[in-house]
C-alpha cells in the first residue's frame, strides 16, 4: 500500500522521545507558559506517541503476514561494550511490546486529557505535567527496551516519577512520606532484580538482550542446565516484580500511593507502572517456564495477594483505598496467570484491567473533584442524579471488573481461572532440558560412592533416579494449581461484592453528606467526560479480542502474542474439554452474580441495618479487615518504631528486640552512632590531624615492612 519504503523501526525512538521532549519543555519553561500551553504540550506529545504506536502496531500486523515472528528493532548505539559484556541502547517492538505500547500511550493520553480538568486549580501544573510526561517516557523505555538493562532504566525511571508524583503535594508531610515509602519498598524489590540481572550476565553469556537470552534458554546445550540456579534467578526477578507490582509482602506502598493526584493513580498505580512486574515475567517467559518450582511460588504469592487484598477491600470506606486494594487484588490475578504459565491470559487481563481500572479511578477522581475533595463513601450516595455520565461509566467498569459477560473483565478473568487448572508443566521436556545437569550430578554421586573409575551403569542408574525424582517433584506441584484456583474464585466473589458495594454507596440511595457540597456537585467536565466515555467503551469491547477457545477455537489476542510466548507455551501445556470450560465459565458468572447480589441486598436497597449488624457480630474480623490486617502497623512496628507496643506475648518481645533492634534498626543506629563518634576525632586541631598522618605512616610501615 505504501508507495515509499518505510520501516516502523525508525518510529520507535520518536515514540519514546516525544514525551521526554514534552517533559523537558514543561519542566524547564513551564512557568512561562500559559496553562493552556502546558496542557497542549503535555497532551499532544503523548497523543502523537499514541498515533505512532498505532502505526507500529499496524506495521507489525502487516509484517506478520510474511513473517509470523516479525518484530521491529532499532539499535541506537552500543551503549557499553566491555570485554564480554555488552549493552546496546536499543528498542524492540514485538507483539508483546506493541500491546503494552498501545496501553501506555493510549491510557496515558486519556489521563493527560482528564488531568486538565482535575487539576484546574493547582499552581504546580507545569511541574505536574513534566513529571507525567517523564513517566510516560520511562514507561515506554521499559516496554520498548531490547534488553534487561534498558528495561531496568525504565523500571527505575517510572519508580522515580511515581515517587515524585505521589509526593506531588509535598507540603503535606503525610503525602511526602507516602512517596518515600513507595521509594523505599521499591528499592527492596530492585535489589532482587539487580542481582538477578547480574546473575544472568554471569551465566548467560554476557548479554541480557531478550533475543539472545531467549535463544540461550531455548537451547539446553548453551545455557545453564542447573535447575536450582534457574529457580534462584527466577525468584530474584520475582522479588523485583513483587516490589513494582505490589505483591505480598511488598504491596504496602500501593494503597499509600493514593496520596497522589487521582489521575496519577489511574495511570501509574492502576494501568501501567504496577503492571511492569507482570510484563517483565511475561517477557521472561522462556526463563520462568524452565522452573516450575519458581512458577508455583509466583502463582501462590499471586493467589494470596488476590484474596488478601480483596478481603481488605470489602470494608474500606475511602473510595480510592477500595480501588487501590482492588488493584492489588487484580494484580494478584495477573501474577497467578503468569505463575500458572498462562502468560497470554496474564497480559490479556493486564490489557483489560488497564481500561476498566483507569476508568474507575478517573470516575473516582471526578467524584472527588465534584465533591470538593471528599473521599469517604459514607458521606456520598445518590450521585446518580448529579453525575449521570460518571455514574454510567462507573457502572460499566464495575460490571467489567466484577467479571460479568460480555464485558472485558469476564473474558480475561475467566481465562486466568480456567488456564490455572488446565495447564501443567511438561515435565518430560523440562527433564530433557536439564539432562546435562542431571548427568553431572549423577557422575558426582556415582563417583563419590564408587571410586574414581565411574561405572557407567551406575551413573546411568543414578541419572535415571535423579530424573525421576525431578519429574515427580514437578508433578507434585499440580495440587497448588487447585489451591490457587479456589483462592482466585473466592477473590473473584469478593471483587464483585466490594465493587458493587462501592457503586451502590456512592451513586445510589440518599446523599449523606452536607448540603453545601451537594449543591455544588457537578458532573465531569468534557475532557474528563470524554476520557471516561472512551475508557468505558473499551471496558465493554476490550475483552472481545480475546474470546476464549470455546468460541470457535480462534483467539486473536493469544494468537497475536504467540511469537513472544511460544517457548513458555511449549513448556507449559494443557487444554480443557469444551464442556469443562463452559462449566468453569458458568461458575465464574455465578460467583460474580452472587457477589453483586449480596452487595445489592446489603447496600443497593437503601440504608440497611444488616452490614452494621454483621460488623458487630464479627467485630474482630471486621476490625482486622478495616485496618488492613494491621499489616501497615506491623511493618511500622517491626521496621520503624521499636518497642512501641511491647506486650501481649513473649514472642512479640523476642520479635521486636531480636528482629527489630538487632537486625533492622540496629545497623542504622550503629552507623549514625559511629558517624558521630568519628566526627569527634575531627577536633579542629592541626596537630591532632598530623597525628592521624603519623598513624597512617605507621600503618603503611606495618604493611610494607
Amino acid at each position, binding site marked *: 500500500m505504501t508507495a515509499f519504503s518505510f520501516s516502523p523501526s525508525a518510529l520507535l525512538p520518536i515514540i519514546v522521545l516525544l514525551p521526554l521532549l514534552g517533559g523537558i519543555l514543561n519542566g524547564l519553561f513551564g512557568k512561562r507558559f500559559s496553562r493552556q500551553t502546558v496542557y497542549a504540550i503535555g497532551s499532544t506529545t503523548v497523543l502523537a506517541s499514541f498515533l505512532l504506536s498505532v502505526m507500529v502496531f499496524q506495521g507489525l500486523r502487516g509484517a506478520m503476514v510474511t513473517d509470523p515472528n516479525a518484530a521491529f528493532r532499532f539499535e541506537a548505539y552500543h551503549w557499553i561494550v566491555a570485554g564480554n559484556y555488552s549493552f546496546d541502547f536499543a528498542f524492540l517492538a514485538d507483539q508483546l511490546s506493541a500491546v503494552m505500547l498501545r496501553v501506555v500511550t493510549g491510557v496515558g493520553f486519556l489521563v493527560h486529557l482528564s488531568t486538565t480538568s482535575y487539576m484546574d486549580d493547582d499552581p504546580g501544573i507545569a511541574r505536574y505535567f513534566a513529571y507525567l510526561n517523564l513517566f510516560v517516557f520511562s514507561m515506554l523505555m521499559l516496554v520498548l527496551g531490547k534488553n534487561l538493562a534498558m528495561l531496568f532504566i525504565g523500571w527505575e525511571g517510572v519508580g522515580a516519577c511515581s515517587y515524585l508524583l505521589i509526593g506531588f503535594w509535598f507540603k503535606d508531610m503525610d503525602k511526602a512520606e507516602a512517596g518515600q515509602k513507595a521509594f523505599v519498598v521499591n528499592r527492596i524489590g530492585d535489589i532482587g532484580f539487580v542481582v538477578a540481572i547480574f546473575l544472568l550476565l554471569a551465566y548467560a553469556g554476557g548479554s541480557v538482550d531478550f533475543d539472545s537470552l531467549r535463544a540461550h534458554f531455548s537451547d539446553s546445550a548453551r545455557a545453564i542446565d542447573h535447575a536450582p540456579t534457574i529457580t534462584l534467578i527466577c525468584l530474584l526477578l520475582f522479588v523485583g516484580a513483587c516490589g513494582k507490582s505490589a505483591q505480598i509482602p511488598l504491596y504496602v506502598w500501593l494503597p499509600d500511593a493514593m496520596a497522589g493526584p487521582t489521575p496519577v493513580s489511574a495511570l501509574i498505580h492502576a494501568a501501567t507502572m504496577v503492571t511492569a512486574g507482570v510484563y517483565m515475567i511475561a517477557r521472561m517467559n522462556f526463563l520462568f517456564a524452565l522452573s516450575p518450582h519458581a512458577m508455583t511460588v509466583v502463582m501462590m504469592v499471586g493467589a494470596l495477594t488476590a484474596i488478601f487484598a480483596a478481603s481488605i477491600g470489602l470494608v474500606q470506606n475511602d473510595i480510592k483505598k477500595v480501588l487501590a486494594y482492588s488493584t492489588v487484588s487484580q494484580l494478584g490475578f495477573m501474577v497467578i496467570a503468569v505463575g500458572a504459565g498462562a502468560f497470554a491470559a496474564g497480559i490479556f487481563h493486564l490489557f483489560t484491567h488497564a481500561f476498566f481500572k483507569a476508568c474507575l479511578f478517573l470516575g473516582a477522581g471526578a467524584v472527588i473533584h465534584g465533591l470538593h475533595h471528599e473521599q469517604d463513601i459514607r458521606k456520598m450516595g445518590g450521585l446518580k442524579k448529579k453525575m449521570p455520565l460518571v455514574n454510567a461509566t462507573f457502572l460499566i467498569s464495575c460490571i467489567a471488573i466484577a467479571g460479568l459477560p460480555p464485558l472485558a473483565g469476564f473474558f480475561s478473568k475467566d481465562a486466568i481461572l480456567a488456564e490455572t487448572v488446565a495447564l501443567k508443566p511438561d515435565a518430560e521436556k523440562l527433564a530433557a532440558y536439564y539432562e546435562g545437569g542431571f548427568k553431572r550430578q549423577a557422575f558426582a554421586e556415582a563417583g563419590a560412592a564408587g571410586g574414581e573409575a565411574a561405572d557407567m551403569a551406575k551413573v546411568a542408574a543414578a541419572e535415571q533416579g535423579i530424573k525421576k525424582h525431578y519429574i515427580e517433584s514437578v508433578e507434585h506441584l499440580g495440587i497448588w494449581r487447585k489451591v490457587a484456583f479456589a483462592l482466585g474464585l473466592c477473590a473473584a466473589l469478593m471483587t464483585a461484592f466490594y465493587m458493587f458495594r462501592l457503586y451502590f454507596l456512592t451513586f445510589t440511595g440518599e446523599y449523606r453528606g452536607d448540603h453545601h457540597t451537594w449543591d455544588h456537585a457537578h458532573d465531569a467536565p468534557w475532557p474528563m467526560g470524554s476520557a471516561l466515555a472512551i475508557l468505558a467503551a473499551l471496558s465493554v469491547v476490550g475483552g472481545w479480542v480475546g474470546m476464549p477457545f470455546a468460541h470457535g477455537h480462534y483467539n486473536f489476542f493469544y494468537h497475536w502474542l504467540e511469537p513472544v510466548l511460544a517457548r513458555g507455551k511449549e513448556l507449559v501445556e494443557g487444554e480443557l474439554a469444551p464442556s469443562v470450560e463452559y462449566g468453569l465459565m458458568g461458575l465464574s458468572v455465578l460467583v460474580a452474580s452472587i457477589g453483586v447480589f449480596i452487595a445489592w441486598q446489603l447496600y443497593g436497597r437503601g440504608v440497611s441495618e444488616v452490614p452494621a449488624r454483621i460488623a458487630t457480630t464479627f467485630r474482630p474480623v471486621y476490625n482486622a479487615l478495616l485496618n488492613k490486617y494491621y499489616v501497615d502497623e506491623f511493618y511500622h512496628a517491626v521496621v520503624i518504631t521499636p518497642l512501641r507496643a511491647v506486650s501481649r506475648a513473649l514472642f512479640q518481645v523476642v520479635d521486636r528486640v531480636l528482629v527489630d533492634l538487632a537486625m533492622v534498626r540496629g545497623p542504622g543506629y550503629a552507623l549514625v552512632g559511629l558517624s558521630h563518634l568519628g566526627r*569527634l576525632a575531627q*577536633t*579542629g*586541631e*592541626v*596537630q591532632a590531624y*598530623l*597525628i592521624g598522618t*603519623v598513624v597512617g605512616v605507621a600503618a603503611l610501615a606495618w604493611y610494607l615492612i
Partner: protein
Amino acid sequence: MTAIPLGHILTLAALLFSLGLVGVLTRRNVLIMLMSVEVMLNAVNLTLVGFSRYNAWTEGHVLAFFIIAVAAAEAAVGLALVLSVFRLKQTTYIDDLRLLKR
C-alpha cells in the same frame, strides 16, 4: 680529605627529619612549626647531597637547589598566611584556630 661515610650523612639527615617532624607535632606556635618544616626539608637536602657526593652524581645537587627554592616560596606563603591569621585573630598559636571542626 677524609670522606664521611654515606651512612653517617643519612643518619644525620634522618635525625634532622625526625626532629623536624616532632617539632611540627608538638609546637603550638605556627612560626616555630614553619621552622620545623624547614628543618625537615633541609634533612631531605642533606640526604640528596649526600647521595650525590658519595656517588659523584649531579642531579641530586640540582634537585636540592630546586628544593631550596621551593622552600623559600613555601616560607613566603606560610608567612603571608600567618600574617592574615594574625590580622583577624591577633594570634600565632595554632590552638586558637578551631573554628572548623566536626
